[in-house]
């Protein structure tokens, strides 16, 4: 519901800001991560990912804001290619809570249950433009 409201009001900066604030107040801290802590927390991703190289998973530079399954040279699952997802911070937050719940059949299974850790990782990824 809130997401669809945001979509409707995307062009209205004041409303969008208000909605973003209420999202944070409603207990979704993904917009308030600490990129310095996130760089450390990113270790949990490095078994399979790197910032600048495709590895077991695709490279992460520029991931925040890009369309899913769009890195050249990486063999994505059919499920993720068909997902139509855009990696907004909110979407990455959902993905990290359980990739198979968001996109059944995706390659990734690892999840990060801690909301603060997810927020920090997202904040760090946002700096890796």
């Amino acid at each position, binding site marked *: 519901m809130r997401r669809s409201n945001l979509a409707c009001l995307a062009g209205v900066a004041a409303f969008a800001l208000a909605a973003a604030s209420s999202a944070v107040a409603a207990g979704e801290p993904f917009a308030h991560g600490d990129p310095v802590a996130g760089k450390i927390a990113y*270790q949990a991703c*490095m*078994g399979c990912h790197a910032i600048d190289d495709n590895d*077991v998973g695709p490279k992460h530079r520029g991931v925040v804001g890009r369309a899913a399954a769009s890195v050249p040279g990486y063999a994505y699952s059919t499920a993720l290619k068909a997902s139509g997802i855009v990696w907004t911070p909110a979407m990455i937050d959902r993905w990290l809570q*359980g990739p198979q719940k968001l996109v059944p059949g995706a390659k990734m*299974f*690892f999840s990060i249950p801690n909301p603060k850790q997810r927020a920090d990782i997202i904040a760090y990824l946002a700096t890796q433009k």
Partner: protein
Amino acid sequence: MDHDPTRRRALQCLSWAGTGALFTMSGGVASSVMVETALAATPAPQAVAPFSFVQISDTHIGFKKPANPDVVGTLRETIRKIKALPTTPDFIIHTGDITQLATPEQFDTAQQILSELKTPIFFTPGEHDIVDGANAQPYKARFAPSAKGDGWYSFDHRGVHFVALVNVLQFVDAGAGKLGPDQLAWLKADLEPLSASTPIVLMSHFPLWPLYSQWGWETSDAAEALALVRRFGSVTALNGHIHQIQQHVEGKVVFHAARSTAFPQPAPGVGPGPGPLVVPPEQLRGFIGLTSLEVRAHNAPIPITDTTLA
């Protein structure tokens, strides 16, 4: 040669280390007893002819992140250590993640370097050895061509039954591994004809005990496999994936996770999650290495010795 009492005696003597104490590892607890007690407790030799074998794991050929930019170099150091062991192992087992990305080039490099061992190697795959996370055939064709299904098999060596299991093709939450019903049915049939006094060694990549579920360090249907081995007097379950020594005992089953030859990972629950742990370069060799096992008798835990490259 293997039935030569002189060799057997030499193997026993190697364990005493000149201190008058015999060290064994059981369930993560190192115990020592005086030599006289050990001699009195030594069971009469049975069908198992003493021998040793070595476990290596997680060589990750192709990995080049800061945790170890030279995994080829540390694998070659491991090979030199194995060649310098006082007892030549009958064979090597590799418990997976041979490569980082299962590319033909990485498989080529791994095969070329591992051939320097001049010793038979029995493999089980890690999730990094499966092309696109789903296709085990390129791994199987190179490293286990006569295996069943997606790469599982067994063999007997001097009275011990070795089983290579594949738990890296199906995953559950947090990335834990799974054996799957086909493999479990094969395992049941494989074990059925064996006497309960046959020592069993299980090899797998993911641990067969719930080492740390939050990080996926377990095998979701391992309990079904363990039910099949419960009747045996000696069961040793060797795994990789964890990149550090971890041990556990359940009844007569001894579980042992080996170090990597490439890089360490954090202890369970320490830090944000699993992944390559960067340590000061001069300390790396204290975190990686190999595992030696000496089989001596039926119904006795197999002594396990872990050695770092330091």
